[in-house]
C-alpha cells in the first residue's frame, strides 16, 4: 500500500522505536552513573553518539581504563555494519536533498531506523527521515536522562551490586541474540570471550587491543562456519 511519506508519518513510524529505545536508554543511564559520569556527560554521550551497542562498548572500555586509540578502533569496528546500511539507504534517498541534509540523516541511521526506513518505496523524502530519526533520538536521549535520575536515587547499599549492571545488560543482549539466531550466536560470543580471557589474563595484553583481536577473530571464524540465513 502506498502511503505518503510525510513528517507526521515519520513521527508515527518512529513511535515504536521511541518505545523500544526508552528502557534500553534507562539501562545506559544507570551504567553511566555506575561509571561515575556526571549527568550532563551521560546525556552528552547519548546525544553525540546515538548508538546502542557502540555506547555500551565505549562505556565498558572507559570503565576498564582502555586507551583512547583502543576505544576509537573498537567503536569503529562494532559500528562497521552502518557502512552497509548507509550504502543501501543513500541509494534510496531523494536526489533533491540539500548537501547539509545528508550528514544529518547519516547521523541518525541506527539499526532500527534503517530497518523501518528501507521498507518504504524510494525515493525517501528528507522530512520523513528527519521525523523518523528525530522521534527515535528523543526516545534514546530522554531514556538516558531517566536512567541517570534513577541511578541518583538508588540506595547507597546497592551501589556495589550496581557494578553488575553492564554485565547484566550485555547478558540480556546476548540472550536475545541466541533466542533469535540460535546457539551459534552463543558459540561465537563464548569463543571470543575465551580468547579475550587468554589474551588479558595469561598474555597480559591491554584490554582494548585484546578486545579488538578477540572480536575480529570470532567474527571471521563465525562467518566461515555459519550460513547466510542464520545471520539474518
Amino acid at each position, binding site marked *: 500500500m502506498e502511503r505518503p511519506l510525510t513528517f507526521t508519518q515519520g513521527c508515527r513510524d518512529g513511535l515504536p522505536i521511541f518505545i523500544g529505545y526508552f528502557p534500553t536508554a534507562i539501562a545506559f543511564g544507570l551504567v553511566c552513573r555506575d561509571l561515575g559520569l556526571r549527568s550532563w556527560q551521560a546525556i552528552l554521550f547519548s546525544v553525540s553518539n546515538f548508538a546502542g551497542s557502540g555506547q*555500551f562498548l565505549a562505556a565498558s572500555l572507559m570503565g576498564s581504563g582502555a586507551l583512547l586509540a583502543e*576505544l*576509537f578502533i573498537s567503536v569503529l569496528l*562494532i559500528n562497521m555494519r552502518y*557502512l552497509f546500511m548507509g550504502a543501501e539507504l543513500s541509494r534510496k534517498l531523494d536526489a533533491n536533498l540539500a548537501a547539509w541534509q545528508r550528514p544529518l540523516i547519516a547521523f541518525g541511521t541506527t539499526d532500527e531506523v534503517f530497518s523501518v526506513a528501507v521498507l518504504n518505496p524510494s525515493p525517501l523524502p528528507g522530512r520523513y527521515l528527519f521525523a523518523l530519526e528525530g522521534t527515535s533520538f528523543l526516545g534514546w536521549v530522554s531514556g538516558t536522562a531517566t536512567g541517570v535520575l534513577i541511578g541518583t536515587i538508588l540506595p547507597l547499599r546497592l551501589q556495589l551490586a550496581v557494578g*553488575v549492571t553492564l554485565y547484566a545488560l550485555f547478558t540480556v543482549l546476548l540472550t536475545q541474540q541466541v*533466542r533469535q539466531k540460535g546457539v551459534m550466536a552463543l558459540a561465537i560470543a563464548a569463543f571470543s570471550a575465551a580468547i579475550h580471557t587468554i589474551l588479558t589474563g595469561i598474555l597480559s595484553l591491554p584490554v582494548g587491543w585484546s578486545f579488538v583481536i578477540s572480536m575480529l577473530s570470532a567474527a571471521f571464524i563465525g562467518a566461515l562456519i555459519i550460513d547466510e540465513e542464520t545471520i539474518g
Partner: protein
Amino acid sequence: MNPTVAILISALATFITRLLPYYATWLSRLPRFFAKSLRLLPIAALGPLIFPGVLLDYPDRWWAGLGGIAVASLFAWRKNGMIIPILLSIVTTWAILAL
C-alpha cells in the same frame, strides 16, 4: 582518560561509519564474506564484554557477578525487555555480597 574526550572520540568513530557510505560508494561492492563478518561483530563483541570482567570485578566472591548475570539471562530468555532482568541481577548480586 578524560570521560568527555572519550565520549566525543566514541561519537566520532560512530559518525564516521555512518557518514562514509554516503560518499564512498565502493563500500556497497565489498565481498560477501566481509559483509557477513561485519554483521557478526556485535555478537562477537558481547562475549569479551562479559568475561572475564564479571568474575574479576568481585575478587572475594567471584560468583556474585556470575549469579547476577545468570538470573538476568534466565529472565531475558522467557520475556522481552531489559529493565526487569537487569534490576533482578542487581538484587541477586547484592544479596550474594550481603550474605
